């Protein structure tokens, strides 16, 4: 009894300590200064009520749990359905259906919705890339955003200084990011587990800080904006309103009124195309020996060495391919924003991508897509405003309790053998 009492008092105190400064105190601007305002009595009562509620819950939890167990089970997916859902063949059909819907849908949707969908697709691309590194090869990379930044800046710099267009820069950005992945991977991949995580985290930050401080080339905190004539074009047709006189435009070519809707849909379709290419690439890799080697390495490095495999080469390949996918995503991101600044590539982005991979179920591609949708939607819930991150955290905790293996964990793709 005394132990439950102690823990009950502790949790109640914790509620008070945490929620009073967060919810009870408000900063208001008075002129150029700030003034702290106390909470209204209503808010104070709410906090007190929450503390009391938690106190009672902790106190009576042991007695409540049996009745809790009798409640209907959580919204569980029956093992048969989940088995069916995670089969590679099912996933393929689901993906096909999703692609069809995704192709047609933007022509009937609002501009804002298409824009958010484009953002989701960027995160899908990033998630798929990081999935190779973390989900398949088992290398915890916390600096993935660094390669995303390299891709974005490669495009921005090439466009700004050399006047190159998006379609030339896209493969170049991917290659540049791959090169960075390769070079950074060499020293880093000797490390394992937590140490690797720390060092990659450091590298991610170094890239961002470098970009911010090389003011002459990267524009520092102001970033680089991409001129309209270098933005993505459809066979040379620009989707911008104002372009140099000699450049054909989409609305000019078809002799229709300019609408920014066209551009948004066009960008969305490019993103979709890139995601499909990524999916195709990853699926091919998974069926190749190198894909299996990534997973084998995640399982047992010593056994891999015993089989004559060189772990460094395999890790490096995963790291490099993952980085190049981030590079593609980065250059597209730059094209969509029209402006790259170092602040788009902070650690929280890495965390977000990692969360997508973990939430989706390590190694599962459909899971990554689903998780990217959930995560971006959560971020974009404007009506929840400042409580957004709170709900974000709550969803993560609930996920880890209910489905620690992820939304749709991967099943092994079987290769058919002639017998």
């Amino acid at each position, binding site marked *: 009894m005394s132990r439950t009492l102690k823990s009950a008092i502790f949790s109640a105190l914790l509620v008070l300590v945490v929620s009073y400064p967060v919810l009870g105190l408000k900063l208001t601007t008075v002129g150029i200064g700030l003034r702290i305002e106390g909470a209204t009595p209503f808010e104070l009562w709410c906090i007190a009520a929450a503390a009391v509620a938690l106190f009672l819950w902790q106190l009576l939890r042991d007695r409540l749990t049996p009745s809790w167990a009798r409640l209907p089970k959580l919204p569980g997916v029956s093992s048969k359905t989940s088995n069916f859902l995670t089969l590679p063949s099912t996933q393929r059909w689901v993906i096909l259906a999703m692609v069809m819907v995704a192709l047609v849908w933007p022509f009937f949707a609002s501009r804002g919705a298409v824009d958010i969908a484009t953002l989701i697709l960027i995160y899908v691309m990033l998630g798929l890339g990081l999935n190779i590194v973390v989900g398949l090869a088992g290398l915890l990379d916390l600096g993935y955003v660094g390669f995303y930044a390299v891709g974005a800046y490669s495009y921005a710099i090439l466009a700004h200084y050399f006047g190159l267009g998006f379609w030339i820069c896209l493969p170049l950005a991917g290659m540049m990011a791959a090169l960075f992945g390769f070079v950074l991977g060499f020293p880093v991949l000797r490390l394992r587990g937590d140490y690797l995580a720390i060092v990659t985290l450091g590298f991610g930050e170094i890239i961002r800080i470098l970009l911010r401080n090389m003011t002459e080339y990267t524009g520092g905190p102001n970033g680089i904006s991409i001129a309209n004539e270098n933005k993505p074009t459809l066979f040379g047709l620009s989707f911008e309103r104002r372009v140099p006189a000699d450049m054909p435009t989409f609305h000019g070519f078809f002799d229709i009124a300019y609408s920014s809707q066209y551009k948004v849909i066009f960008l969305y379709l490019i993103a979709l195309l890139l995601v499909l290419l990524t999916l195709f690439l990853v699926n091919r890799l998974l069926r190749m020996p190198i894909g299996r080697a990534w997973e*084998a390495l995640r399982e047992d490095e010593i056994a891999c060495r*015993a*089989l004559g495999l060189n772990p460094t080469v395999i890790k490096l390949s995963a790291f490099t391919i993952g980085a190049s996918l981030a590079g593609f995503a980065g250059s597209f991101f730059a094209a969509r924003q029209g402006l790259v600044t170092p602040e788009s590539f902070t650690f929280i982005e890495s965390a977000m991508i990692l969360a997508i991979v973990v939430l989706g179920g390590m190694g599962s591609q459909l899971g990554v897509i689903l998780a990217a949708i959930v995560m971006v939607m959560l971020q974009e819930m404007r009506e929840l405003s400042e409580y957004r991150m709170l709900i974000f955290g709550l969803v993560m905790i609930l996920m880890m309790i209910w489905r620690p293996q992820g939304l749709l964990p991967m099943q092994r793709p079987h290769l058919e053998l002639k017998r």
Partner: protein
Amino acid sequence: MLYFENVSTFYGKIQALHDVSIEVRKGEIVTLIGANGAGKSTLLMTLCGSPRAASGSIRYEGEELVGRETPDIMRRSIAVVPEGRRVFARLTVEENLAMGGFFTARADFQEQMDKVLALFPRLKERFDQRAGTMSGGEQQMLAIGRALMSKPRLLLLDEPSLGLAPIIIQQIFQIIEQLREDGVTVFLVEQNANQALKLADRGYVLENGRIVMQGSGERLLTDPKVREAYLGA
């Protein structure tokens, strides 16, 4: 086929092997027995290049192995079944075997897969099952099968009987005998001295990093010192 000549290995300052010399001839089963911590596994690992031998020479089919990288050594028709099996738990049996055949030529791959499955019918039954869900004996079979996928001429086994039921141990040893008939040379590191010596053509006894005795399997089996120290008789 395989010669160790005065090989010494160190872990930091501690010397684990003292001038070890052994020989494995083509088509033999040679066993190395010894107590816990005698350096049996170290000897095998030294052959694999990790840790590296500090002095001496290890020659395989006329080529010097000391100083080479582990992956390089393991691609020379040598296969090892590591201690504790070390199968890829979350990969299927099929994928485990495929990993073993990573460097096997495509033309030989299927043939080798069929051979291994014929040798271990159990693996065929469990073909699509994850390796981690199988019993210890099945995992040991898988580990041996995986090693055989690379078409080795020399097979190194590190305590294949560890933690297995006697009947399974017998099966495993039968298979090792069968492998010799197929022309694979076997170097067997074992604590289960009784079984290993019955099977082996020749044996070595390792004590505190030194070879203290060698001879044919039968001779060692009847040697009073060996009987006292390792056979508990």
